[in-house]
C-alpha cells in the first residue's frame, strides 16, 4: 500500500497538527482530574497555590498555542495500522513533521547524542522519535502520541520480586508495596500530582514498554480485570493519604491516576515496572481517513 502525493501531504499535515495539539493542550480526562485536585486542596495552602498555577498554565498554553511545559519530552508514538501498511514511509513523513514542529517551537530541541553530548537540534537520532507499530484488523489508521518529560521519566522504577527490604512477595500485596515505595521515593520530583502506568510481569524491556502503554488509557477507564481494578483504585487512594501533595509541598493530591496491566512472565522472574507521568500529561491521538486527513480526535 503506497501513498500518493496528496495522501503524503495530508499525512504530513495531520501529523504536524497532532504534535501541535499534543504539546499545547491537555486531554479532557486529565484536566478533569486536575480540577478535582484543585477543589480537593485546602484554601491558603501551598498545595492549593500549586494547583491554581497548574490550572492557569493549562488555560494559557491552550490559548497561546504554546507548549504546556518547556520540556516537550520524548516523542512517543503508537501506530495502529491495517495489514499491508508501509511503516518506513510513515516513519519518514512523521520525522519530517517532528523536524518542522521543532522549528515552529511546538517541540523543544530536546534530543542529545549520548556519546558526544551534541544536540542535533531537530529531535532526530537513534531511538527518537520512539515509534511503536501494531497491526490491527481495521482498515483505518490510528496514531496516538505522548510527550513524556525527563523529570518524571527519571522517577520511574522497576522492581524484581521478591524484594526482601520491602517485604514484598510475589503476589498483589507485594506489587502494592513496591508501587507505593516508588510513589514515596518520587516525592514531588516528577512534577506531581502524577499518573502511574504499571505493568506486572514480562521481561525488563517489555514491562517498561507496556507500562507506558497503560498511560494511553483515559483516567476514567476501568480495568477489565477485577483484581487490578481494585488495586488501581487502592493505589490512588492510599497515595493521596501519604501527604506528599502537588510538587511535594504536602497536601491531599499525590496521584491523579494509576493504570495497571499484567503480562506473562518466566517462572523465575516477577517484575513490576512503573512509569510516572507528570501533571503535564500530554497525550492525544487521531483516526485518519483514507485520504490521510484527521477524521476523529481520540481523547
Amino acid at each position, binding site marked *: 500500500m503506497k501513498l500518493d502525493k496528496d495522501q503524503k501531504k495530508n499525512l504530513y499535515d495531520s501529523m504536524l497538527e497532532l504534535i501541535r495539539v499534543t504539546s499545547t493542550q491537555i486531554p479532557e480526562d486529565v484536566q478533569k482530574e486536575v480540577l478535582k485536585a484543585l477543589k480537593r486542596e485546602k484554601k491558603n495552602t*501551598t498545595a492549593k*497555590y*500549586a494547583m491554581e*498555577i*497548574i490550572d*492557569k*498554565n493549562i488555560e*494559557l*498554553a491552550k490559548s*497561546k498555542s*504554546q*507548549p*504546556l*511545559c*518547556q*520540556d516537550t519530552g520524548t516523542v512517543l508514538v503508537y501506530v495502529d495500522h491495517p495489514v499491508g501498511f508501509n511503516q518506513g514511509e510513515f516513519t519518514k513523513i512523521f520525522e519530517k513533521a517532528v523536524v518542522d514542529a521543532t522549528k515552529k*517551537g511546538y517541540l*523543544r530541541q530536546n534530543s542529545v547524542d549520548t556519546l558526544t553530548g551534541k544536540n542535533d537540534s531537530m529531535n532526530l537520532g537513534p531511538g527518537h522519535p520512539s515509534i511503536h507499530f501494531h497491526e490491527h484488523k481495521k482498515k483505518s489508521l490510528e496514531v496516538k502520541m505522548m510527550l513524556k*518529560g*525527563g*523529570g518524571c521519566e*527519571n522517577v520511574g522504577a522497576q522492581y524484581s520480586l521478591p524484594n526482601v527490604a520491602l517485604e514484598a512477595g510475589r503476589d498483589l*500485596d507485594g506489587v*502494592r*508495596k513496591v508501587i*507505593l*515505595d516508588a510513589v*514515596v521515593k518520587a*516525592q*514531588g*520530583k516528577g*512534577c506531581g500530582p502524577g499518573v502511574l502506568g504499571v505493568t506486572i510481569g514480562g521481561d525488563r524491556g517489555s514491562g517498561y514498554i507496556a507500562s507506558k502503554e497503560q498511560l494511553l488509557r483515559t483516567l476514567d477507564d476501568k480495568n477489565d480485570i477485577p483484581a487490578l481494578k481494585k488495586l488501581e483504585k487502592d493505589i490512588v487512594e*492510599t497515595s493521596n*493519604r*501519604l*501527604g*506528599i*501533595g502537588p*510538587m*511535594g*509541598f*504536602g497536601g491531599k493530591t499525590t496521584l491523579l491516576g494509576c493504570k495497571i496491566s499484567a503480562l506473562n512472565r518466566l517462572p523465575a522472574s516477577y517484575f513490576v515496572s512503573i512509569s510516572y507521568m*507528570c*501533571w*503535564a500529561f500530554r497525550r492525544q491521538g487521531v483516526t485518519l481517513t483514507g485520504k490521510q486527513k484527521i477524521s476523529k480526535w481520540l481523547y
Partner: protein
Amino acid sequence: MKKLNYPFDEKQIRALKVGDMVMISGKLFTGRDAVHKYLHEGGKSPVNFKNQIIYHCGPVVLEKGGKYEVMAAGPTTSIREEPYQWEVMRDHGIVGVIGKGGMGPKTLEGCRKYGCVYFHAIGGAAQVLAEKIKSVDDVYLKEKFGSPEAIWELTVEDFPVVVTMDSHGGSLHSVVEGESTKALASELKKKKSTAKKK
C-alpha cells in the same frame, strides 16, 4: 502571600520561612549546569551576583527584531547543582536560588551559613512563569554555552514561588519525605491487621 522586592538583602531573606508563598519582583539571573560548573572551576563571573537570585532555568528565548522575548521559562531540576550551589553562595554572595525538586544537605547548610533561601517554582508551569517576565535585560556567556545554558538577566513581576528551604535549617522536602515515609509504614500496617482479622 509575601512579597519580595528588588534590591534583595540578607535581612529580607532571613525573614523568610519554609512554607511561605512569595511573589518576587525585580531581577533574576538564570543559571544551570554549565554556569555552575564554570564558576566551580574558577571561571570569572561576568555579573556581580552579590545579593542576587539565581534561577535554575533554561528558557526558550526568541529574537524578534533585535529584541529578546521569552517563550517558556519553567524551572529545571535543581539537584544537579547540589555539588556547586553552596560554593556560589560562599564565593559570589547570592541570596536566593529558584528551581524545582529541592536540594540536599550541602545547599541547606550553605543557606544557613551564608544567608540564602531555596524557592520552589511550579514545575511545568512554563507559560504562567514566562508571563511574569517583563523584560530581558542582558545575556552573558551565550556564545560559550548556548542559549538555554547562558546567564539571562531578567526583570520579573510577581513571580510565584514557595520557600521550601530557608536560612534557618528548615527544609520542607525533608519534612514531607519523613512524614510520608512514616505514613506509608502505618498504611502497610493497617492492611496487615485487617488481613489478619479476616
